[in-house]
């Protein structure tokens, strides 16, 4: 077995940074705590840089149970960016709401390291290790606002449901192992090359259990019911991190395990996956319309976006794959941005982000409101913004692979989503007044994160070519 750790450097780097932050926290005085932020960001930057140097490398470690191909590196960058944005956004929020800074940042880093492992896992057991590293960190993160009951409740719910999903995944892994004699994805794939008559019946059952477990993690209907409460209860920056990075990690694993390695089983999955996509889009959007708070609306809208991503999965590897990665990129930027703005408006005493809170904001906080409008328009799919380009490529892959009906259902769903995304803009610009009350003072780094997210949302909409090429190269490194 080779022990060359170079390909693992990004994950190791991020994990080390987590430990450094945790240790540093013990020795720092109160006024020096900004160092924690710098250390965490430095760790992520180094991890991202190492991932960049590994690009096009196609390396493997631990007997090929962990692959560091472009696919892994794409997600590594995505996770690192999401984690960095979350940290930038959290600085003031964490301090003013009395959370433990050292733990908060190091848990974000631990979760990120777990995600990187998930994206690269070429073995079901390694995938499971990555998943649990991520999950446990996020369980804690979602309960870190101990001054709020909702936060503890969210952590509890998330933990219980997460354990449930874990059960499904473990069963699924066990059945796949029983059928194929291996947990290594390469050997599972090799096994599946035999004729289907030789497969034991429980192989499909195992794959279905894996599907259900992952559907829980991405929040696909009907496995979505935990999302609104958990998203609402968790501290706002953590919600942003969950809805972007956790979801992207689950999709990464979904693509590598189900869509790629187990692709001979595609015919069994086709119909369930279609139904899953349709239900997820439609129910997510319909419920988002009725939500009283912006945070819950974003929770349901993230379910709907999982539905659009599932369309890309239905469309098959050749067309759907690259558009899935691009969509995740676009979705991450605009969702992180939206949650960053919400964090910027958060108040210590009044955590509920009701629509009414936004009234008149357009002219009181012009920068945050303009950025929020941009994110909402992008999420709703207006050109020339990232969300539109993402949807365009997803629908294009659907039409190309003969699923025109899914594309039509997708665009009708986009129309539904316009209703609630524009409601945010209506509140900010078209309704007078607004609740008084003091929002937390925000550090400049929050504005930096919002500005970067807005600029990239626009950039990916106007000049998507480079990012598309990047998605394409990343996806096809799977083959």
């Amino acid at each position, binding site marked *: 077995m080779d022990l060359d750790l170079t390909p693992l450097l990004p994950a190791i780097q991020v994990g080390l940074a987590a430990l450094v932050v945790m240790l540093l926290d013990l020795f720092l005085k109160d006024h020096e705590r900004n160092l924690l932020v710098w250390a965490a960001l430095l760790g992520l930057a180094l991890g991202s840089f190492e991932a960049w140097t590994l690009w096009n490398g196609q390396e493997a470690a631990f007997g090929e149970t962990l692959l560091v191909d472009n696919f892994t590196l794409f997600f590594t960058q995505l996770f690192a960016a999401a984690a960095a944005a979350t940290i930038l956004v959290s600085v003031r929020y964490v301090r003013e709401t009395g959370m433990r800074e050292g733990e908060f940042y190091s848990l974000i880093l631990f979760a990120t390291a777990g995600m990187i492992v998930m994206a690269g896992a070429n073995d079901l057991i390694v995938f499971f290790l990555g998943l649990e590293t991520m999950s446990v960190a996020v369980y804690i993160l979602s309960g870190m606002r101990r001054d709020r009951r909702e936060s503890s409740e969210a952590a509890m719910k998330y933990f219980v449901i997460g354990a449930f999903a874990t059960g499904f995944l473990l069963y699924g892994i066990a059945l796949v192992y029983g059928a194929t004699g291996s947990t290594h994805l390469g050997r599972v794939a090799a096994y599946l090359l035999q004729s289907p008559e030789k497969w034991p019946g429980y192989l499909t059952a195992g794959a279905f259990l894996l599907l259900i477990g992952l559907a829980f993690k991405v929040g696909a209907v009907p496995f979505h019911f935990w999302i609104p409460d958990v998203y609402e209860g968790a501290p706002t920056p953590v919600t942003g991190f969950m809805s972007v990075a956790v979801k992207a990690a689950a999709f990464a694993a979904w693509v590598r395990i189900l869509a790629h390695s187990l692709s001979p089983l595609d015919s069994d999955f086709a119909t369930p996956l279609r139904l899953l996509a349709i239900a997820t889009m439609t129910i997510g959007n319909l419920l988002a319309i009725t939500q009283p708070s912006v945070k819950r609306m974003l929770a349901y809208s993230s379910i709907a976006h999982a539905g659009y991503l599932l369309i890309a999965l239905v469309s098959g590897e050749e067309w759907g794959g690259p558009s899935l990665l691009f969509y995740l990129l676009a979705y991450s930027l605009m969702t992180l941005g939206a949650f960053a703005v919400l964090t910027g408006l958060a108040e210590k005493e009044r955590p509920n982000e009701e629509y009414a809170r936004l009234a008149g904001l357009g002219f009181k906080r012009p920068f945050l409101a303009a950025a929020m409008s941009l994110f909402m328009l992008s999420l709703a799919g207006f050109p020339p913004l990232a969300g539109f380009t993402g949807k*365009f490529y997803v629908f294009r892959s659907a*039409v190309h692979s003969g699923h025109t009906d899914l594309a039509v259902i997708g665009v009708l769903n986009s129309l539904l989503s316009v209703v609630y995304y524009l409601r945010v803009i209506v509140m900010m610009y078209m*309704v007078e007044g607004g609740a008084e009350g003091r929002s937390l003072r925000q550090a400049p780094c929050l504005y930096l994160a919002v500005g970067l997210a807005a600029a990239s949302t626009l950039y990916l909409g106007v000049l998507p070519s480079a990012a598309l090429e990047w998605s394409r190269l990343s996806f096809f490194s799977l083959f």
Partner: protein
Amino acid sequence: MSTLTFGPLTWLLLLPVVGAALLLFIPRDRKGALYALSLLFTLAAFSWSLRIFALFDEAQGRMQLVERLPWMPAYGIEYAVGIDGISLFLVLLTTFLMPVAVLASWPVRERVKEYLFFMLVLETGMLGAFLALDLFLFYVFWEVMLVPMYFLIGIWGGPRRIYAALKFVIYTMAGSLLMLVAIIYLVMRHAHLAQTLTFSLLEIYELRLPYDEQLWLFLAFALSFAIKVPMFPFHTWLPDAHVEAPTAGSVILAAVLLKMGTYGFLRFAMPLFPEVALAAAPFVIAMAVIGIVYGAAVAMMQADIKKLVAYSSVSHLGFVMLGLFAFNTQGVQGSLYQMLNHGLSTGALFLLVGMIYDRRHSRLIEDFGGLWAQVPVFSALLMVVTLSSIGLPGLNGFVGEFLILLGAFGAAPGWTAVAATGMILSAVYMLWMFRRVIFGPLANPENRKLADLNARELVLMAPILVLIVFMGVYPDPFLRRMGPSVQLTLDRIAAAARAQHGGAAAQ
């Protein structure tokens, strides 16, 4: 890509956005400077479009001043713009009306910066939609227009502005999203059959699809355009949007945005799916004529002048649709001419309604009466515009309506006869409105202190009136330049239809 290689059309598209970007650097309380800058940039865009007019070769029907740059080459998407006789005057109409709209916005005193920003972005969106030669680019501009209009209605509109703005967006998007799927499908089919992946309109024109496929694609495109026109029964968003929009918003909405729908039919739906378009003509004509009569009938019942003008648009655009689907030169040229006429006349009507509303804060017909003695200049202008709107010979409206009826009579004589009654109805409701507002006793004492138009208002109305008369007396410079492009489009449709019949005969 050096900026020096941009052609005239790209510069035209850039001028308003550059103006919008510069606005952001002016402090928000410097209202005069904000207006001055916007006026400067809209005037610059107008004079630049006159330069394009001068560069335009009237003998040619094909796309001119074409610029193509790769945008997303891997996906066959390019930045491609061009202009022909069909889009030329619509572009001019847009750039001509924008300075007028900015001048007319003077009474807007709140959030001026954002207001003007959205106006300028809107201008680029509209111009882009008229100039785009790439289906993807067209779709982008088509949707880009929506957002500033949504803000203009929703922030600066009347009491029910939020409802109206949302209805406007939802209706328009409902159509255009299906068009997006149709565009993707069309491009995929083209890529499959022609072995080149491209969104280029001119190349996809050459694609011949079987009738069944054309049908669905035509329906998706037509729905999107029919909502924008708006054709009966997709018109219900329009009165709300018009009534709630601020004056300049109504002007732009009526004068330019509605033309997007009819332009879309002529540029996309008809030549891309010619067989279905020909087959659908009887249905479209029927709906158009129903719209003419229905719009006129409803306009007659309105107590609010702005609503009356809004419903009259439904009626007038029915005429435009009638002419387009006559599929002959007179009909289509008449429609194109009528698009400009409607832009000028209805734009002017909304401006005048806005001016009187600023003074009296009422738009109800019953609140007025006997205004002539009080505000003679306003009354005289309203008279000219009213007569233009009902198509008095010698003014612009007549030429368009005459050509449309001439063309439509050849295609569908029965429906044309019914449409002609719509002209009579329009004379009835417009003149009736005029009589009740301007003549009779000055019953309402509040009207005694009405001030007549000021210099700014005269300045912004004057060019429109000059054009109204000019286009009525001397339409030739317009028709001459439209002619070759209209002919080319009709030939393209006819050739496709012949090919279809020839193919059927050969089988």
